[in-house]
């Protein structure tokens, strides 16, 4: 229960009343927030958009090219608006690289998809006795609950499931939507408010006695998630999901593909006050035919999406408050295999970070001439998330206690990257 804080005079408040057994309830009170909460969302609310590259992107072909090396592959580097070079197939992004930085010295050890996903999302390696929260859930827990006027979930994952909220509970779990923003079953259909009201009253009666039946936390969590769902389906902020309302030229700029539309949706959500949005792009597990896939499909979408999002946020004055992170579960081998593919590689790779007041235009850290190892200091996901936490104003020294009583540092003791937080 400690994880849930009533947000304004919204339905959550209502549900709490209901739980005490009030039998009838004026319909108006239930939906009165519609007007009350129509206030403007404050512009300086911090947020993070995570671009998740499922399958493991070949960063050696995107952010840290190795021309002249046997591992270099088919692409050439080009200069950018920042103080670094990136792939020739990222021309639009190159123009905004003054806003974005690349950390080229990631070394993360986990090169199995599942373990890598977990490690990069949570800063911790998998452990059978505890499930660590993905960083989106941490942001939801730390920032979502402060935002009393936020009625939609504080952690939205677009086009993919993200990872578990772990011991932060289902109320901080990712709300998963597809990139078109359509939310299944969000409409109440023909049911009047009064009836919904009474249904919820009845529901509360059944739920609270089951919660009291000493069966652990799941029954309570069920109730909390229901209050979130009711919040969502009755909120005017549902508008944020309606990507279709964007002008055609805006949609066009982001690219007519699920990643581009997902980023556009992310911008709308951030504008509405959602502190963490994860946007998924798949198709990176390129064990064969890597260059062809990158050239014809992956990089054009990626390039367009990143550039459009960066420009759009900038134009709206949001970039300064919105951290952009780009990563996958790991990257791909510098060596090109016999199928012209690259296999899993966690030893030396890149993550892109920008916006949110972080210093852009830099390459941080480096790999050796063949890209096979990091030269000098290397970074782990905890360092990236510490940097993000710093930008979001989440205190790093915060320690959670997991259910089995184990203290848990917010980013596994990582430190913010000095060059980024400047």
């Amino acid at each position, binding site marked *: 229960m400690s994880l849930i804080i009533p947000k304004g005079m919204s339905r959550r408040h209502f549900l709490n009343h209901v739980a005490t057994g009030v039998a009838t309830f004026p319909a108006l009170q239930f939906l009165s927030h519609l007007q009350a909460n129509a206030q403007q969302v404050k512009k300086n609310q911090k947020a993070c958009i995570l671009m998740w590259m499922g399958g493991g992107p070949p960063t050696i072909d995107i952010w840290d090219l190795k021309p002249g090396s046997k591992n270099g592959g088919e692409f050439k580097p080009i200069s950018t608006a920042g103080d670094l070079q990136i792939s020739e197939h990222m021309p639009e992004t190159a123009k905004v690289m003054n806003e974005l930085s690349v950390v080229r010295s990631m070394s993360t050890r986990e090169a199995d998809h599942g373990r890598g996903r977990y490690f990069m999302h949570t800063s911790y390696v998998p452990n059978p006795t505890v499930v660590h929260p993905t960083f989106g859930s941490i942001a939801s827990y730390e920032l979502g609950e402060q935002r009393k006027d936020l009625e939609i979930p504080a952690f939205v994952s677009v086009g993919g499931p993200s990872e578990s909220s772990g011991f932060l509970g289902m109320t901080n779990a990712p709300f998963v939507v597809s990139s078109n923003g359509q939310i299944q079953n969000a409409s109440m259909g023909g049911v009047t408010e009064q009836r919904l009201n009474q249904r919820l009253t009845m529901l509360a009666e059944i739920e609270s006695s089951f919660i009291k039946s000493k069966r652990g936390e799941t029954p309570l969590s069920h109730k909390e998630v229901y209050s979130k769902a009711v919040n969502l389906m009755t909120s005017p902020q549902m508008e944020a999901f309606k990507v279709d309302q964007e002008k055609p030229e805006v949609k066009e700029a982001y690219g007519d593909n699920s990643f581009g539309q997902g980023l556009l949706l992310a911008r709308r959500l951030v504008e509405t006050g959602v502190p963490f949005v994860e946007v998924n792009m798949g198709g990176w597990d390129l064990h064969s035919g890597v260059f062809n896939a990158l050239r014809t499909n992956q990089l054009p979408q990626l390039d367009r999406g990143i550039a459009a999002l960066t420009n759009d946020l900038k134009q709206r004055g949001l970039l300064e408050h919105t951290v952009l992170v780009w990563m996958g579960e790991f990257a791909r081998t510098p060596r090109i295999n016999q199928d012209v593919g690259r296999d899993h590689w966690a030893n030396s790779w890149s993550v892109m970070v920008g916006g949110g007041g972080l210093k852009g235009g830099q390459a941080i850290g480096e790999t050796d*001439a063949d890209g096979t190892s990091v030269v000098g200091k290397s970074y782990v996901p905890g360092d990236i998330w510490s940097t993000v936490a710093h930008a979001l104003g989440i205190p790093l020294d915060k320690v959670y206690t997991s259910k089995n009583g184990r203290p848990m540092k917010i980013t596994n003791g990582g430190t913010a990257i000095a060059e980024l937080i400047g």
Partner: protein
Amino acid sequence: MTTVADTSGPESSIILGSESSGSDSRSRKKSANGDRSAPPRREMPPSSEFVQEFTKCQRRLYLHILSQVGSPVDAEEILQETNVIIWKKYQQFVPGSHFLAWVCQISHYEILKHRERRRKDRHQFSSEFVSAVARESRQMQDELEHRRGIMLECIENLRSADRELIKNRYATGENGKSVAAKFGRPVNAVYQSLSRIRRTLLDCISRRIAAESH
């Protein structure tokens, strides 16, 4: 022993030569990469005896290297570099000869190279120390191997809390400091516990060996 010198000599010098021209160990890895990207030569895979010997020697080889460099991270790195060479030279290994001696010899060159790269590190052992330890470590190999077997029994006899601490300390990527943080204990207290447990283990091993010989 002559086998060892014959087989490892020439190629090592080639590699050392390439290193002096400015490339580091990674470039050797790369050239190994290059070899591998060609289809494997199927007519001559390493013999299964070789594979077995290779597998079998790894831990002892690691410990041999560790005793000379002191740092587990460095030892692992050198082990990896040594393995690259071992694998490249498998055809030079004469079946039936002393495999461990052969690989220790290879590791010798790799340690030299590693020390060369790190020559500015003031925490490095002197070469006098390294060669003395290498000699002694080779001579004590069988005995150390025996001690290790007994160590396993001794670990079983530890108090469970001690066993837990050791397990945590030696889990991948951990060290005394991180374990202290994890257990919420002062770092020094953890150091003390660890040193006590390691001494307990050493005592236990020695006691058992003494008992065996009676």
